[in-house]
Structure formats: C-alpha cells, structure tokens
C-alpha cells in the first residue's frame, strides 16, 4: 500500500509540475487548477514525508510523556498514601499526646501542690525555729543583763559596806559579833 502511495506520489509530482508550467506559459482566466493541484500535491508530499519522518518520534515522545506522567501520578499516589499514613500516625500520636499532656498537667498540678505544701510547712517550721531562737536569745540576754546588774549591785554594796563598816561599827557591835560567833560554835 505504501509502495503504491509512493509511486502515485512520484507520478503525481511531475504531472503537477507540468500542469503548473502550462499554466505559467499559457495563462487563461478562471481558477488555476494546475497551480492548485501542484500546491495540493506538494503539500501532500510534505505531509507524507513529515508523517513518515516525525510520526514515530512524536508517538515515542507522547508515549514517554504518558509513561512519565503515569509514573509521576503513581509516585504522587504513593506519596499521598504515605502522607496519609503519616498523618494518621501523627493524628493518633496527637490524640494520645493530648491525653498524656492532660495527665502530665494533672500530675504537675499535684506535684506543685505537694511541693507548695512542703515549702509552706518548711517555711512555717523555719519561722517557728527563728522565733524560738529569737525568744531564747532575748531571754538569755535579759538573764545575763540581770546577772550583770545584780553582780554590779552586789559589788557596789560590798564596797560601800567595807568603807562604812570601820566607821560605823562600835565596840558593842564588835562584842556582839564575837558573842554571835561563840554561840554559833557552841551550837
């Protein structure tokens, strides 16, 4: 069939060329059938050559393009499925995470309350200890001040008595002291 078409084209091309030559050498009014036929045949030859030469390449290109698109679609589908799976996993984790977070928050609140109570108790104990120490220190200082005052008072009284005694004590007093001493010895 192809051979027949090629032969027909081979015959038609010179015929069309002859018809065009006739038209140019012997012009007449009306439709230029020869030129028209030549152009049509020329275009048909061009189209045939084009078909013979580029069809395979175009088909291959289209096939490759289709395969690439197909692969891309399949790849995209796989990625989409993976993404869906990942999303589901993450969703699951997020769902769990919310629960864990709530549990953690509850635990943290409980821990904070326990720690707060412990801190408050420790602070209370510390405050009580400080108060006790302060009271004890104050008592000690007061007692020491009292003792110092008593000691000073006693010392002053002693010095005063020692200074006054020789002048104030009479012979009768001295006699009375001796008598008291004797009665104590006899007791």
């Amino acid at each position: 069939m192809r051979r027949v078409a090629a032969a027909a084209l081979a015959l038609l091309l010179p015929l069309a060329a002859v018809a065009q030559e006739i038209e140019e050498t012997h012009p007449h009014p009306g439709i230029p059938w020869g030129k028209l036929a030549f152009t049509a045949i020329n275009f048909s030859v061009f189209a045939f050559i084009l078909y013979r030469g580029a069809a395979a390449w175009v088909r291959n290109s289209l096939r490759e393009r289709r395969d690439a698109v197909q692969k891309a679609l399949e790849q995209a589908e796989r990625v989409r499925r993976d993404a869906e799976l990942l999303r589901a996993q993450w969703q699951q984790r997020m769902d769990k995470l919310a629960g864990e977070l709530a549990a953690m928050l509850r635990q943290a609140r409980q821990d904070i309350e326990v720690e707060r109570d412990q801190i408050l108790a420790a602070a209370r104990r510390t405050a009580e200890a400080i108060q006790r120490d302060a009271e004890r220190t104050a008592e000690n200082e007061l007692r020491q001040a009292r003792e110092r005052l008593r000691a000073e008072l006693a010392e002053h009284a002693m010095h005063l008595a020692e200074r006054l005694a020789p002048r104030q004590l009479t012979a009768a007093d001295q006699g009375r002291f001796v008598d008291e001493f004797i009665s104590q010895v006899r007791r």
Partner: protein
Amino acid sequence: MSSVARRYAKALFAVADEQGTLEQTAAELQLLRALSGDAQIAAALTNPLLSATSRNGLARTIADNLKLRPTTRNFLLLLGDHRRLDQLGGIAEHFERILDERLNRVRATITAAVALSDAQRQAVISAFEQKLGRSVLAETRVDPQLLGGVVVDVAGTIYDGSVRTQLHALANRIAGGRSLS
C-alpha cells in the same frame, strides 16, 4: 615534813618523856626552830661543805648561846654529827604535834578585827574546848580587814565569823539572784 624528822622527833620525845621534861624540851625546840628560820643560819646549817668539826662547833655555839639543857644540847650535837641540822624545823613541829596529842590539846589561831578582851578571848577558847573536847592553846592576832567578828583556825580547820566573809556571802547571794532571807 620528812619521815627523818618524824623519827628524830619521836626519839627525842621518848627521852624527854622519860626525863619528864616534855614542855621544856618543846620550848627549846621552838627556839631552835625560830633560829633555823633565819636565812643566814639556815644556809650555814645546810651547807654541805662544812666539815664535821665546823658543824659541831656551830651546834655547840648555838647550844651555849641558847643555854640549852643537856638533853637538847646533846640532841643538837647528834643532829650535827648526822648532818641533819636542816631537819630542825620539821623535828620541832612534829615534837609539838606529839606533845599536843599526849596532852590532849589543840593549837588555834584567833584572828579578830579589833583586839579581843581577855574575857572574849577566854570565851572563844572555852567554846572551842567545849566543841572539840580538848584544851585549846590559842594565839591571837588582829586583822582590821575582817571588819568585824572572829576567824579561828584550829589545826587547819577554819571557823569564819568575820563580817567581811558575811558581806561576801551576802554579795554572792545578791549576784546569784537568790533570796536574801
């Protein structure tokens, strides 16, 4: 007091007791004791470089000067021979102690802020004789620092009735915050 002094004192006491001259011997020993208390004489009595002749000469001189009776004089010479003149003080003290025990008496020192009258002194002595059941050989002293009252030292035991001590006790009670009643 050394055991040497005690042995010599007992020996002398036995001799004096036999002769019936305990009091005289004790008095002479007290003289010797007072003499040996002098620094120069003590140095001479204890000098180890003195020869036996010199020591005897020294003892003889002391005996002559103090007009010691033969017993005490011989005892002194014996101490010189035995190089025990340095023990005189201890011997006299122990002799006195043995004599006091024999006579059932005790020595006391009565110290008062002002001089005691004879009656007061005798009253104090009587009180202690009654308390101790022994006669008291008392020596009296005056110490104005006592302020008032009496302090009696009986063989190392102190009976303190001085105003100064009472004032100190009062001051201590005031300082200690105790009731004064």
